[in-house]
């Protein structure tokens, strides 16, 4: 912070040293923000070129002193009148707005303000604060492999020692001139021992069989449970930066969530709405964003332009439901008014790529209905349909919403059942047909 202040001071002193008065610089600041900042930045090319010391650039290019003023007021007139203006016209295909109302003094004050800026001052202050938020994910080492290798080494040593013992015995017998009697093999020795202690061996055998069967059954229960499934992605997308720090709504990128059964992956077009300007501050970020540019066919050099040479990004699907389940995001988000975090957890804190959040994590999120069954299993759906209330008390039969209609039919068909539903003071999804098999399986 201190360093930034010092830089600012140097910048201001430098500005005072130049001819411009502080009054006009302040005016230039306000004018730049109101008129120019939408397209121009001081030190970076954007929709328009960077403007730092642009007057010197024009002078060096041999432009008449009045040419740049004419350009700001109406660039088309300038192009017709001045050769240098004509040469810079092709910098970008986007046409600059015209500002006929600006006076020469105002334009001078804008340029004075721009030239008084110091690179890496104000803007970079925010930049460093941002980069710290995105940190690398700690690599989790796989310990199982170590155990497997150690077990193999152990077994090898035991067998080798046994073998050596045998060989030595044979060699010793050979040396003594006796014929070597290999005696019983290990298998026969074990058989004899087992028969001697058959009571205990039998009991141990029974315990082992029961253990194996129980493990097998527990193993079968984990089939089709995908909690913690986190496939690799072509671009390690940090939700925490986008939805957390930058406050982008889930529904902006996953925009078909209110219109379709699939929440949708954003097209690269949506990425480019921001990333046309944001190209990353750390080399790691730049590498990831370069992958978006490649997909969009965007060449970021100079003003930047689309080449038309696009390439799909092949993401890995995270939440995979079996084909025999019909799930609609639209139904849940629009009609059911379910928040994204009920099923996907708090993505504003998710630094790693997306994963199927285990139910324990989901239960920690404020405002979520607490569930017990594993995420994305049928038990989990059923449980939520039982808990989630459509309304407290009776529904309004005058409205024409989805649930109001179901409710109206229920009231007309079976009044007694309806009164039973209202005993606990709320109407849940399951009471309005959320437990019907054909709701999801058809």
């Amino acid at each position, binding site marked *: 912070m201190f360093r930034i202040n010092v830089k600012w001071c140097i910048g201001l002193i430098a500005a005072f040293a130049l001819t411009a008065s502080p009054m006009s610089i302040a005016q230039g600041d306000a004018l730049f923000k*109101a008129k120019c900042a939408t397209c121009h930045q001081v030190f970076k090319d954007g929709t328009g070129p960077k403007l730092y010391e642009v007057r010197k650039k024009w002078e060096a290019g041999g432009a008449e002193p009045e040419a740049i003023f004419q350009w700001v007021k109406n660039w088309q007139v300038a192009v017709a009148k001045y050769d240098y203006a004509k040469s810079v016209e092709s910098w970008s295909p986007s046409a600059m707005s015209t500002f006929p109302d600006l006076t020469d003094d105002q334009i001078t004050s804008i340029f004075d303000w721009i030239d008084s800026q110091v690179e890496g001052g104000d803007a970079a202050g*925010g930049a460093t604060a941002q980069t710290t938020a995105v940190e690398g994910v700690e690599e989790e080492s796989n310990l199982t492999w170590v155990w*497997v290798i150690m077990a193999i080494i152990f077994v090898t040593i035991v*067998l080798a020692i046994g073998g050596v013992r045998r060989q030595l015995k044979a060699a010793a017998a050979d040396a003594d001139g006796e014929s070597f009697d290999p005696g019983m093999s290990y298998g026969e020795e074990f058989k004899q021992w087992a028969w001697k202690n058959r009571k205990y061996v039998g009991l141990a055998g029974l315990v082992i069989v029961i253990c194996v069967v129980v493990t097998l059954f527990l193993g079968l229960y984990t*089939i089709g449970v995908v909690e913690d499934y986190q496939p690799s992605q072509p671009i390690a997308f940090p939700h925490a930066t986008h939805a957390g*720090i*930058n406050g982008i709504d889930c529904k902006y990128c996953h925009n078909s969530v209110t219109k379709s059964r699939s929440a949708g992956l954003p097209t690269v077009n949506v990425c*480019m709405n921001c990333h046309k300007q944001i190209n990353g501050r750390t080399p790691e970020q730049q590498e990831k964003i370069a992958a978006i540019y490649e997909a969009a066919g965007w060449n970021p050099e100079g003003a930047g332009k*689309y080449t038309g040479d696009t390439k799909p990004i092949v993401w890995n699907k995270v939440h995979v439901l*079996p084909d025999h389940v019909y799930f609609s995001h639209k139904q849940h988000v629009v009609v059911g008014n379910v928040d994204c975090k009920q099923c996907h957890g708090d993505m504003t804190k998710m630094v790693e790529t997306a994963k199927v959040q285990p139910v324990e994590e989901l239960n920690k999120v404020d405002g979520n209905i607490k569930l017990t069954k594993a995420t994305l299993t049928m038990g989990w759906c059923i449980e939520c349909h039982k808990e989630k209330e459509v309304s407290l008390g009776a529904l309004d039969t005058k409205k024409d919403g989805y649930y109001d209609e179901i409710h109206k039919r229920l009231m007309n068909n079976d009044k007694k059942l309806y009164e039973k539903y209202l005993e606990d003071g709320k109407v849940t999804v399951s009471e309005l047909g959320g437990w019907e098999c054909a709701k999801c399986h058809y």
Partner: protein
Amino acid sequence: MKMKLYSTKIVALSAITVFLLGSCGADKDSPGYEFMPDMYRSPAIEPYVDYGHLKERENMDSKYHISALVPPSGTVPYYGTDSATVMMMLPYSRLANVSFRETHGLYNSNLSMENEYELAAADRNPLTLTAENADAIFKTGKELYNTNCAHCHGEKGNGEGPMVASGAYVGVPDYANLTNLSDGQLFYSIYYGKGSMGAHGPILTKKEIWTLVHYVRKFQNADYGPGMTMTADTTAVEM
């Protein structure tokens, strides 16, 4: 000789053990075992599924291709029988400028040589505000705005959304400085993009964009409501 055979056995045994245990390790990109794999992946086309690999067969023609097909050109979605709505939802008549090919990547669209942004100044908002629908339009507008615009333009429309506050993005205008734009130009800018802003036509319907145009006017004039229209020259005037 016998000893050598013995050690070969050990090596073979440990190799098999390593292979068997190794195959237990889960593939990170596979969700794991399923009870009935063909019930998980049926031949019926689903979104976001790569059909280049189906039933253990590789099909290079459809690998890395989007499973959903593009509707035939000229297809118009069905929006009921209300003629006003249908007219509003017909494809946008104004084309993007040829320069949008390079600046906004519109390579597959019909493009115009003319400056249709200027021509769009004549377009009127077909979503007329009345005393009955105004509240509903502003309410929907607010929801749409907070989802699609507020992260840059700010909840108050002053160009200071969380994207700008975090220092990630610069150059978002304050709507208060854009009163010289007509409704049609606002629509054109949202639909095709303007300057740094990208096209939002693909993610919003035309009705939603016109709703947003009404809501943006509310930032420029707190009294904006039924019976008012914004002209290209100054601010809201009574009709």
